Structures are given as structure tokens and as C-alpha cells.
């Protein structure tokens, strides 16, 4: 990854970030707009993102991105310059652009030149918007501004200056002097403090700094507040506030009505000096000064592999220590062990450190979901409120990325099939607007994500009837099904409660795929639904994928790894105390029956010699879904680096990856979720296999 290719990789990652920034600002803008508090800085931020994106796209030859960026930039430019009023129908194409940008980039990445079919319609929609008004000219001459200042303003800065003057704001010069070493922090503090009082137009270095370690700047500031308020709010020994004199009186206002101390009337909304700074602002300023670095996830994977290899070296050293001990070098061994413990501690810290770097807040994907919700609910004419909690909950970057599609499907399903139309809701006494809650929280070693809607719930009877019609179930099975089992049918390929497919989520599309994708991430999905009250999907996920504590087991001479997170206990097993129940082999465990999976049989391993008399049962699984894996030997607990199986083996069920044992042997990592699925759902097939081998 170097040279122009490296730059190209960086282009994709930066472009994605810019698209996320655009999306975030549009969502905030939409919310601010609905709350009646439009914020011009949000439009400007969105503009800046698209503007930079356009530049990048040109640099890297992404024509589709360039064209779309150009069109959206024009619209955002008119919005930020106040030439257009912000209305919901103007936001719509902007929201659509976020998706189309992503589609174009994905195609670019795959080397497809052809733009996505969504591009042209969006471009013509953007072209179809009428032109905004021409910006007002003049106004700048109302102030005695230094020509040197005017010469260095960019076009936008000049527009903002003009708009501020036309809005009746007064201009100030803040002369500030900052240490070069802490300038970012000082600047962010100044911005936060100044924000409630007006707008910073630009910063000009004066070139007159008292020393080489400091820098002096003139900050051009437009405000409705009077001088004394600003001096009280912003003035320090490092910030001197000076008014900029008017060259002639403001048009439309007789000079006599201007209060002598102020060059513009103070607007009532402006806080007075002495008002406490808003706490939110303080928090934001702290965040803004944090230093961040963008790192390719593959580099982190590489580091993690090295950590894994170091653990192997450590094990080898330990074996040498044992040999030394056997040869009587006791003193040496003691020292070696002491060093070994320090090494272990440090290695663990290193491993934790890398894992922590990989963690990103779920908010990244929640933002995308909020956008989908807005779009889909508008398309369907449903009024839906999205309530998000726990957006700061962190998960491995890889998991967060992989979650995006499944969550998107679930949200679409909830909007399309879950939330009823407004009239139907009123008829049953619910508020006309539906609510979808997206909750994330940490629970032990896991992260839970819940998607809860207050819609009509799933019609379990209709699901069962459909399953029977499709031949998935026979009438007897159907009649014996519990409510819970019936709901689980949602995850059967091809089943849906809605008979007519819709554009939005299709015919229950994807719930089986959703389940598979979640399982691939080592997670499980649970469903609760009450007719008339709503549906809740709960996803349980491991927080990280890369390094897993595993129980190493041996079956028919092969070594397998069982992730410890899914193991609740391991028991000795004599093979005597089992019985058969509904075609499955079960044993009693503290009064409850536990389904067993004879791994040697299930994995169809060639058994060279008879299994040992005394074997072991590894009780694994989540919640109510547990199973006993029957193995020949327990080897012990080990931290393993899970590596993907690669394309050719990706379709093999029952394994989530492989790990290097360090002695040129490789162990497969069992995908317990998939095994449970096979044993419970495909019980009959497994049962047949059992009979064949047994």
C-alpha cells in the first residue's frame, strides 16, 4: 500500500468520512429545522464536506462523485449564502445524495466505470430546482475595513461578511495572541466562547508576534452584542476586543437612534456577559481538541497477529523453562518466570490497547439508520419518531461495519411491516406517530442492540399458516408450536406475514439473511412480539472479534477451539446417562435436559481408534439455546487470534475461522451458534447422520 495506490485507499476512506459528515449535518439540520432553530453553521459544515469531496473526486478521477458533488455543492452553497430558504423538499435530494455518493464509491472501488442508475435521476432532480436569488452586493463599504483584510478573504468569507453587515450586525476585531504549542486548544476555546455572540468571519495573522513561540491574530467577528458585552464575555489578557468603525451610517437608520456605546442594537437572543457558558459547548470544545489519527484496519490486524505470535513465543519460552527446571537449573527458572510474568502483563496491555483502538461508537451506524428511517418513512407517508440511546456504546470497527446492513433491514421491516398507518393507530388508541427505539448497551462481555417498535406486532398465526402452506411445517407440527416457536418462523427463508411485497422491505426479505449475518459476527438475535403492542428484536454481540479466549478441545485426534464466551461449563461424560428425545440425544443436567452434539459424528470425522471411555461435555450456547458438545479431551484455555477462512471455505458451516497453534498446526474455531442451529433446526438430518455413524 504505497505510492498512488496508498493515496487512493486514503481517498476512499476520506471520501467515506466526508459523506458521513454530510449525512450527520443533514440530520442535525433536519432536526434543527423541525425544532424551528435553523443553524447556518450546519449548512456550512455540510457544504464544506461536499466541497472537499468534489476536490478529492477530481483529484482521483471519480467522475460520478465529481458531478454529484458539483450539483449538491451548488445547492448547499445557495442555502448557506441565504439565497434560498431551507425547506424539506430541498433536503430530500441532499439526503438522497448521501446514498448515491456511497453507491458511486462502492462501484469505483470495484473498478466499475458505469455510474449507479440512481445518479442521473438525482442529478436531474437537483437541476430541476429553480435558481436561487442573486446575492446582494455592496454593504462592505459601510465599514472602514483595512484593504489588506479584504484582499485575503475567500469568496465565502466575503459573502458571510456582507451577509452579517446586511443583517445589521456590528463588526469587531479580536486581537488575540496564542502560544504556538497550544494554539488548537486556545482557538477552540475562543470559538466556543464566541459562538453564542456571533460569527467568526476569518482569522488573519498580523505578522507582529512578540516572540517566535507565539502568534498574533486579528479575528474578524460579527455580532449583535455591544462592545461591553463582548469585552466581558471574550476579553482576557490574550484577547483584546476592538470595534471596527463604520465609514458611514447604516442605511435606513438615522445616526441618532444608534446608542453611543453600540454600533448595532443588541438582539434579545444574545446572552449577556456573566452568563455561564453552556456546558454542552464546553464538552464539545474538549472533544474538538482531541488528536485523532486515521488507521487502516488491516494495519491493526497485522499488529494483532504479531501479538498472537508473541503469545506463541511466550508459550515456547515457558516450555524451555520447564525443560530447564527438569535439568535442575532452579535459580534460572525462577528468574525466567519472573520475567515471563512481566512479559505476560505487558503483552496483555498491548493486546487490550490494540483492541481498544479498533473500537468505534455505534453512533456511526445509527446515523445511517436515522437517514434510512427518515427517507423510508417519508416514502411511505408514515410519521415515525426515532429514539436512540447508547449511541456511544463501542464495538469492534469490523462488527459495526458488518452490522449496518442487517440493522438497515430490521429498521425497514419495522417501518414497513411493524408501524401501522396513522388512521389504524388512532383507531386502536395509539398516538398517530409511531416510535422506533434503537437501544445499545454493554452487558458483561457483550453488547446488546435492541430495535423496538410500537407497531402492530407479528401475526404468529398467519406465519404458521403460511409455513404450512409452503410446506415448511405439517399440520401436526403447526398445532404443537408455542407462540415463541411460531415467531421464530420469521427467520425462515421466504416467509413473511405480509402477503403483498412492498418496495421498501419486499416480502419479509432478509430476516433469514439478517440472522445469518449476525451469527457470522458471533452474535444471536432474539425476537419478542405482542400483537397490537409491538415487536422487539434483540441482538447480542461480542464486543470484539480479533482475539478470543477459547477452550481448546480434541476430537478424533483433531484440535478445535470453542470460544470461551459461549462456554458455560465442561463436565466429564461416561456416555451412559443419555437418552433420546424428539430425535435428539439428550442428557440430564441439574434436572434439565441438555441436547448433545457428538462432534466426531456431526463433523463426520474419521475415527481411527475408539473414543476414550471417559469423554467430556462442553456446555455452550447463549441463554436458553444451549447444547453439550461431546469431545474426547479438554486441552485447556488459550487466547487465540481468529483468522478468517478465506473465500473458498467461507460457505462451510459450523466454523467461524481458524487459528494458528504455533507448532505448524492449525485449529478450526467452532461456530457454536451455527452448530446449535444445525442440531436444533436441522435435527432430523443430524439425527440421520447419527444413526449412520452410531
Amino acid at each position, binding site marked *: 500500500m504505497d505510492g498512488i495506490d496508498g493515496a487512493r485507499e486514503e481517498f476512499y476512506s476520506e471520501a467515506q468520512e466526508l459523506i458521513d459528515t454530510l449525512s450527520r449535518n443533514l440530520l442535525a439540520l433536519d432536526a434543527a429545522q423541525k425544532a424551528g432553530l435553523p443553524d447556518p453553521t450546519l449548512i456550512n459544515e455540510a457544504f464544506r464536506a461536499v466541497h472537499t469531496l468534489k476536490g478529492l473526486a477530481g483529484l482521483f478521477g471519480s467522475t460520478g462523485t465529481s458531478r454529484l458533488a458539483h450539483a449538491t455543492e451548488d445547492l448547499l452553497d445557495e442555502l448557506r449564502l441565504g439565497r434560498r430558504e431551507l425547506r424539506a423538499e430541498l433536503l430530500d435530494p441532499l439526503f438522497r445524495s448521501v446514498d448515491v455518493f456511497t453507491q458511486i464509491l462502492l462501484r469505483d472501488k470495484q473498478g466499475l466505470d458505469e455510474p449507479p442508475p440512481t445518479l442521473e435521476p438525482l442529478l436531474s432532480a437537483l437541476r430541476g430546482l429553480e435558481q436561487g436569488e442573486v446575492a446582494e452586493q455592496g454593504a462592505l463599504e459601510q465599514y472602514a475595513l483595512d484593504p489588506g483584510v479584504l484582499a*485575503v478573504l475567500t469568496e465565502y468569507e466575503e459573502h458571510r461578511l456582507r451577509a452579517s453587515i446586511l443583517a445589521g450586525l456590528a463588526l469587531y476585531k479580536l486581537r488575540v495572541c496564542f502560544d504556538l504549542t497550544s494554539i488548537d486548544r486556545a482557538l477552540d476555546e475562543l470559538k466556543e466562547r464566541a459562538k453564542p455572540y456571533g460569527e467568526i468571519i476569518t482569522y488573519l495573522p498580523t505578522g507582529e508576534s512578540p516572540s517566535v513561540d507565539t502568534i498574533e491574530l486579528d479575528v474578524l467577528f460579527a455580532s449583535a452584542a455591544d462592545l461591553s458585552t463582548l469585552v466581558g464575555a471574550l476579553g482576557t489578557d490574550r484577547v483584546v476586543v476592538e470595534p471596527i468603525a463604520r465609514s458611514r451610517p447604516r442605511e435606513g437608520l438615522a445616526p441618532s437612534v444608534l446608542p453611543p456605546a453600540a454600533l448595532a442594537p443588541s438582539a434579545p437572543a444574545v446572552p449577556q456577559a456573566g452568563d455561564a457558558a453552556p456546558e454542552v459547548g464546553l464538552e464539545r470544545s474538549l472533544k474538538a481538541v482531541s488528536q485523532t489519527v486515521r488507521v487502516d484496519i488491516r494495519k491493526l490486524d497485522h499488529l494483532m497477529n504479531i501479538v498472537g505470535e508473541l503469545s506463541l513465543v511466550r508459550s515456547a519460552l515457558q516450555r524451555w523453562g520447564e525443560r530447564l527446571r527438569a535439568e535442575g537449573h532452579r535459580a534460572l527458572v525462577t528468574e525466567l518466570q519472573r520475567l515471563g510474568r512481566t512479559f505476560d502483563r505487558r503483552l496483555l496491555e498491548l493486546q487490550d490497547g490494540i483492541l481498544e483502538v479498533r473500537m468505534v461508537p455505534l453512533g456511526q451506524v445509527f446515523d445511517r439508520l436515522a437517514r434510512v428511517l427518515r427517507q423510508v418513512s417519508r416514502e411511505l407517508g408514515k410519521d415515525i419518531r426515532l429514539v436512540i440511546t447508547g449511541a456511544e456504546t463501542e464495538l469492534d470497527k469490523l462488527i459495526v461495519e458488518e452490522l449496518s446492513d442487517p440493522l438497515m433491514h430490521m429498521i425497514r421491516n419495522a417501518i414497513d411491516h411493524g408501524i401501522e398507518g396513522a388512521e389504524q393507530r388512532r383507531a386502536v388508541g395509539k398516538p398517530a406517530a409511531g416510535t422506533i427505539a434503537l437501544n445499545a448497551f454493554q452487558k458483561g462481555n457483550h453488547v446488546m442492540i435492541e430495535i423496538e417498535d410500537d407497531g402492530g406486532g407479528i401475526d404468529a398465526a398467519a406465519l404458521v399458516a403460511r409455513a404450512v402452506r409452503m410446506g415448511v411445517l405439517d399440520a401436526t407440527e403447526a398445532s404443537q408450536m408455542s407462540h415463541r416457536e411460531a415467531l421464530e418462523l420469521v427467520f425462515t427463508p421466504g416467509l413473511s406475514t405480509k402477503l403483498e411485497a412492498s418496495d421498501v422491505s419486499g416480502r419479509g426479505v432478509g430476516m433469514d439473511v439478517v440472522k445469518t449475518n449476525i451469527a457470522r459476527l458471533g452474535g444471536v438475535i432474539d425476537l419478542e412480539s405482542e400483537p397490537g403492542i409491538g415487536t422487539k428484536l434483540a441482538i447480542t454481540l461480542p464486543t470484539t472479534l480479533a482475539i478470543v479466549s477459547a477452550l481448546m478441545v480434541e476430537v478424533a485426534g483433531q484440535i478445535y477451539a470453542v470460544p470461551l464466551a459461549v462456554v458455560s461449563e465442561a463436565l466429564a461424560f461416561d456416555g451412559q446417562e443419555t437418552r433420546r428425545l424428539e430425535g435428539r440425544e439428550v442428557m440430564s443436567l441439574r434436572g434439565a435436559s441438555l441436547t448433545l452434539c457428538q462432534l466426531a459424528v456431526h463433523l463426520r470425522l474419521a475415527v481411527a481408534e475408539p473414543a476414550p471411555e471417559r469423554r467430556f461435555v462442553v456446555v455452550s450456547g447463549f441463554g436458553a439455546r444451549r447444547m453439550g458438545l461431546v469431545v474426547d479431551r479438554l486441552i485447556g484455555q488459550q487466547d487465540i487470534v481468529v483468522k478468517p477462512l478465506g473465500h473458498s471455505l467461507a460457505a462451510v458451516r459450523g466454523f467461524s475461522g481458524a487459528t494458528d497453534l504455533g507448532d505448524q498446526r492449525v485449529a478450526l474455531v467452532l461456530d457454536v451458534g451455527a452448530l446449535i442451529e444445525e442440531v436444533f433446526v436441522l435435527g432430523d438430518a443430524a439425527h440421520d447422520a447419527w444413526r449412520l455413524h452410531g
Partner: protein
Amino acid sequence: MPKILVVDDSSSVRSFVRDALEEAAELRPAEVVEATSGFDALRLLPRDQYDLVITDINMPDINGLELLAFIRASERHRAVPVLIISTQSSERDRERGLSLGANAFLAKPLDPHSLREGAARLLHSQRA
């Protein structure tokens, strides 16, 4: 080895410029120092002497024109050639840049070839 300061708030653009310049034979090769913003450049400039400054115009806070004005007003750096790169096709910004003392102007999209050529020409003119 010529020392070049590249000022742009986009990391992709900085990487692109770095990749184009660092390996260029005609620059014998160059040492590229990146500044992530106009302020970052103001922080770097007092510490070192540069043979060329390449800057974007549209950056938050300190824009490229302000940086240029600062460089031309400074004792130490006033003679440094400045190459301006911007997405801004605006004739107005270009004129302002040139009247403030920019030595050359390259519009995006850039190609590595003309970037190398422009940089080499400015470095050469400075030595001559």
C-alpha cells in the same frame, strides 16, 4: 534536498502531493512536510526554512490567502515560492492569490506530472 511544506486540510490531497513529489527525480528527491491546516503551517514555519510552500486556498480558519499574506510579510520566509492549489475555479481567488504574491497556481484536479513540473520550476527559479 529541497524541503517542501504542503498545506491542505484534506489528508488525501496531502498524500497525493507527497507521493507525487517525494519520488520525483527532478526534485532530487524532495523532503515533504505536511501541515493539516493554515494554523498548523503557522506553527511549522517559524521552526524551519522551506524551499517551497504548496497550499490550498479553501481551508477553515486560516485560508491559503491569509497564509500567503503572512509568508510575504514575514522576514524569514518572504522569498519562499508559493504554489497555490485549489478546487476553487474562481477567477477572483486566483487573481487575489497572484496579487498577494503567489508564484504559481494549479487548479484541481491535479495530475502528478504537472505538479512535479510546477514544483521543479519554482525550486529551480529560487536557486537561480
